[in-house]
């Protein structure tokens, strides 16, 4: 964007300065320094107090902390160390190698992190099963296609194995891809002991200390369990346990109706469970565009064996024991009064995720987490307790809490690698798509309609909304899946895409045309001339862009005059 600070590394010889932005008042370059010299420069700076770096009015200060471990090393074991081998760390590592950095990745658990082992990946395996079950069980759907299918059934262990096998496969792919590229995988929990210095090791073994020019924290998150809820891993579970699919309860309460809760409701109802949602906010699916969530509720909740309690907290959940079922105490979110008690066979806690940053040694570099999240600026640079930037330290992914999605972490990691190799880069989070893999899927990029309206009011521009239905799409009708809606929120004056929301068949795959347009700044008046193969679902977006009414220059001029 507008920053011009580039700590380019000596070995990559970055003679170019990418940061020629006219607005920037100061171009401060540490380019072309040798490693040894770089160390000295740090020393210089620390002895002289602080070097003030101003980036367009923002007063972010970079300070080299001279903490417990004193001076940073003069030469480094690695160019880049990444703590945490999840999707974020993996993405960063691959890009770092491509950029010629000597890279190591520290992992205390299994390679792949939450996404691969306990998140997106195994859940997609379960959802693949649930989608097929749902289809096979839908008599009228099958009949409409002229298909006759015998009673669909499933083998729980077989389904669980599919999820587990997929996770192992992706995990080994990930591991192999890093090994093949020469990324060192260091085993143990990583702790920052000082600037540019990390120790790692397994419990009971001697720690190894390694140094790196730059460090990326990518330690991710763990399921968040509100207090009062007792997780026993059997009848009261988090997504970690649910993905193992050790049993399919007759009736399960799902606390939280976000992505995780919704996806699991899809899985459980397809496998024959009944579901009760418990949502603290007044509406189900609060994170989605209201129109999408209303439609989604009609399709994903109402016709299924699901009921819900909204505006309530699950203040106490006791696992099934002593011949009693799981007991869920519901408290009104506003009055804080006891409202109801549920008796169910199991409860899944899907109330979000908490950053996993404990034991990272952040205190050694004077960084204080906020609700566990590592504070960062828009370039993922870690901010210390005094509001200063910690040099050479970045935090990406769930641990910084900016956007808790695997691909967002990876994109942030790539952005950081770009920065440390001399090219300034700021990730536009509004161009990061998100998807919920229910049947049908939900996907989105950018702002929701209320968010866009708020922004429009604040900044004084008009917005318009265009919508298309899957009912008019040939391919969707051929699949007999005409249920769905695509919605575009845009500026009619300049054709800028502010947000796109899709609910329908393969929505998660369809969103990328829109997210790429947002990322590249493509305007509606340009993208509407792009050609889509017929008949494909992508024509839903084609229609959407074509139905948007962008004012032409003549009209605009008329309006202005």
């Amino acid at each position, binding site marked *: 964007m507008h920053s011009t600070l580039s700590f380019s590394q000596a070995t990559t010889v970055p003679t170019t300065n990418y940061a020629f932005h006219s607005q920037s008042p100061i171009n401060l370059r540490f380019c072309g320094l040798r490693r040894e010299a770089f160390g000295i420069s740090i020393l210089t700076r620390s002895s002289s107090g602080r070097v003030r770096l101003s980036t367009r009015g923002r007063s972010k200060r970079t300070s080299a902390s001279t903490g417990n471990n004193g001076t940073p090393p003069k030469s480094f074991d690695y160019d880049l160390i990444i703590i945490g081998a999840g999707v974020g760390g993996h993405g960063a590592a691959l890009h770092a190698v491509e950029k010629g950095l000597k890279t190591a990745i520290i992992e205390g658990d299994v390679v792949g992190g939450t996404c691969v082992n306990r998140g997106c990946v195994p859940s997609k395996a379960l959802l693949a099963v649930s989608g097929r079950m749902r289809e096979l069980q839908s008599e*009228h759907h099958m*009949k*409409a296609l002229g298909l*006759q*299918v*015998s*009673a*669909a*059934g499933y083998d729980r262990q077989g389904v669980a194995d599919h999820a587990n096998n997929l996770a192992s496969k992706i995990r080994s792919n990930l591991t192999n891809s890093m090994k093949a590229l020469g990324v060192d995988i260091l085993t143990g929990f990583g702790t920052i002991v000082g600037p540019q210095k990390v120790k790692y090791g397994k419990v009971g073994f001697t720690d190894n200390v390694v140094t790196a020019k730059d460090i990326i924290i990518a330690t991710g998150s763990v399921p968040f369990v509100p207090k009062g809820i007792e997780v026993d891993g059997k009848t009261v579970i988090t997504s970690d346990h649910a993905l193992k699919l050790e049993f399919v309860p*007759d*009736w399960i309460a799902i606390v939280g109706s976000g992505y995780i809760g919704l996806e699991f409701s899809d899985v459980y109802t397809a496998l024959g469970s*009944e*579901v*009760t949602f418990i949502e603290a906010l007044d509406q189900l699916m609060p994170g989605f565009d209201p129109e999408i969530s209303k*439609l989604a509720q*009609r*399709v994903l909740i*109402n*016709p299924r*064996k*699901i*009921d819900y309690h909204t505006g309530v907290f699950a203040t106490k959940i006791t696992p099934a024991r002593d011949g*009693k*079922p799981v007991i869920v105490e519901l408290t009104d979110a506003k009055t804080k009064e006891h409202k109801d*008690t*549920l*008796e169910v*066979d199991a409860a899944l806690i899907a109330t979000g995720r908490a950053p996993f940053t404990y034991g990272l040694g952040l205190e050694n570099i004077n960084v204080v987490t906020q609700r566990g999240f590592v504070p960062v600026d828009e370039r993922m640079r870690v901010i210390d307790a005094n509001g200063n930037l910690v040099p050479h330290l970045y935090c990406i992914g769930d641990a910084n809490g900016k956007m808790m999605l695997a691909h967002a972490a990876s994109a942030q990691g790539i952005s950081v690698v770009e920065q440390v190799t001399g090219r300034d880069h700021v990730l536009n989070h509004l161009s990061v798509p998100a998807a919920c893999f229910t049947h049908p899927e939900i996907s989105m990029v950018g702002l929701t309609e209320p968010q866009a309206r708020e922004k429009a009011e604040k900044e004084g521009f008009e917005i318009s909304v265009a919508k298309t239905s899957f*009912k008019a799409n040939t391919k969707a009708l051929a699949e007999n899946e*005409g*249920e769905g809606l695509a919605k575009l929120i845009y500026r009619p004056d300049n054709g800028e895409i502010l947000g796109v929301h899709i609910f329908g068949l393969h929505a998660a795959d369809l969103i990328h045309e829109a997210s790429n347009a947002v990322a590249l700044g493509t305007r509606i008046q340009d993208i509407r001339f792009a050609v889509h193969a017929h008949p494909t679902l992508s024509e839903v977006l084609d229609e959407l862009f074509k139905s948007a009414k962008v004012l032409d220059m003549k009209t605009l001029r008329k309006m202005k005059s």
Partner: protein
Amino acid sequence: MQTQLGNAAFPRLLRRSLSYIPSILYSLHSLLNLFHFFRFLSNSSPQSQKHKEMASPFLSNTTISFSSSLSSSSLPRIAPSIPFSSIRSNSTPRRILTVRSKIREIFMPALSSTMTEGKIVSWVKSEGDVLSKGESVVVVESDKADMDVETFYDGILAAIVVGEGETAPVGAAIGILAETEDEIAEAKAKAASKSGASTPSAPPPAPAPGAASTPGPPKSTPAPAAPTVAEGPRKTVATPFAKKLAKQHKVDIESVVGTGPYGRITPEDIEAAAGLSPSKKNVGLAVVVETKPAAPAKAPAASAAPSSLPPPVPGSTVVPFTTMQAAVSKNMVESLSVPTFRVGYPVTTDALDALYEKVKPKGVTMTALLAKAAAMALAQHPLVNSSCKDGKSFTYNSNINIAVAVAINGGLITPVLQDADKLDLYLLSQKWKELVEKARAKQLQPQEYNSGTFTLSNLGMFGVDRFDAILPPGQGAIMAVGASKPTVVADADGFFSVKNKMLVNVTADHRIIYGADLAAFLQTFSKIVENPESLTL
């Protein structure tokens, strides 16, 4: 494009059997979905109204809208009530279907193929408003969307039966339309009776003294005093789907005794309380409950049954039924409710065997011969060709349709030789060949396997000498045919000879067919087989 296709398809389909009606309607539903074109209204007589609705879409292009008030759930009931499919293809059916009543019910329309109930978002018109054809009257929220619903008649909105925010099942009356002001009072009275009738207080189920959760004497209200639970009054616990079903079928959930885990009310409990046939997955189990409604202790016992089954032997595999197998299973369980008895009869087949050798080169099969013989015998004994549908009457079938059991790829199906008494042997054999081919290809049309009035099952080719068949539901009798074997027989004069004898065994519904009837039928059958010349006529 879609409309034209659809409309063009109606007449062609119409000529076929009425078994197609559900699928026609289905396509109608999808059409309706496509076009968001919903109008509905019908007269007040539900029976004639159904006929009218059924007929209308086939008569003109504009009347698609009628069918939107048909719910998919009501289809099975509608289909059998239209036995005169031929009438409808007449050129002047309008006259027949003219409706006299001026008071019409506005029905909850089926706005989508999956919609089972709809919520009234708002009434666009109020009571007393004059409506003209095509005007929006009410906004209905389906499982999919909010839709404006238009009237198809001019009239006055006399009464609103289902108010805003309330929910009604598809096909239920939600409002009453009067044609003139004079009829408003009458319409209102009708509305009052409707709303009264539409909320039937579910009869409190028989108390279940045997149920573990409610020991002690039977109580009229089970909720307030559950004695052994120390925590005071136990609230009713019902699963999400049970609640949905209760709402849909207007079952008072408080009056239902739960049989699920921890005494919770399960969807099956609601279905039982609503008098519905239980959901598929528990067919066998629920039938037990159904047949013994008087014994309340049975319910919990029955529901406990699955858990008391011995655990599967290690290494065993569970293979779910195919659709065909599931249908067989369902029919077999249903057959238990019919009191049957069996009568056996030896038949000499030398003459038949000789005839078979003669006609075999012409493509005649033994199955065709036996079916023809049975059909000819049935023609003389219409009682054996009848069935008992309701336990109160005989239903005499005008056609003699011989269903023949065939084993196909792990399944069992009964292709039907229609009018077997009227077709000649060669046509019958030809027909049979076609049916078997179709059955193998799984292309049998419903009326080709479910229209039988009498069933023939032959295991003779496997050397089985005699067996006993289960009477399929809806038929009066089934004949089990064993192998024809050389047998030493002594005649009246004491001379021994060897003759081919075949044992046939008929299972029949004793509510309508008695021993002597069956014996007489078998005697006739035996005579025909022993003098088979008539078969070739």
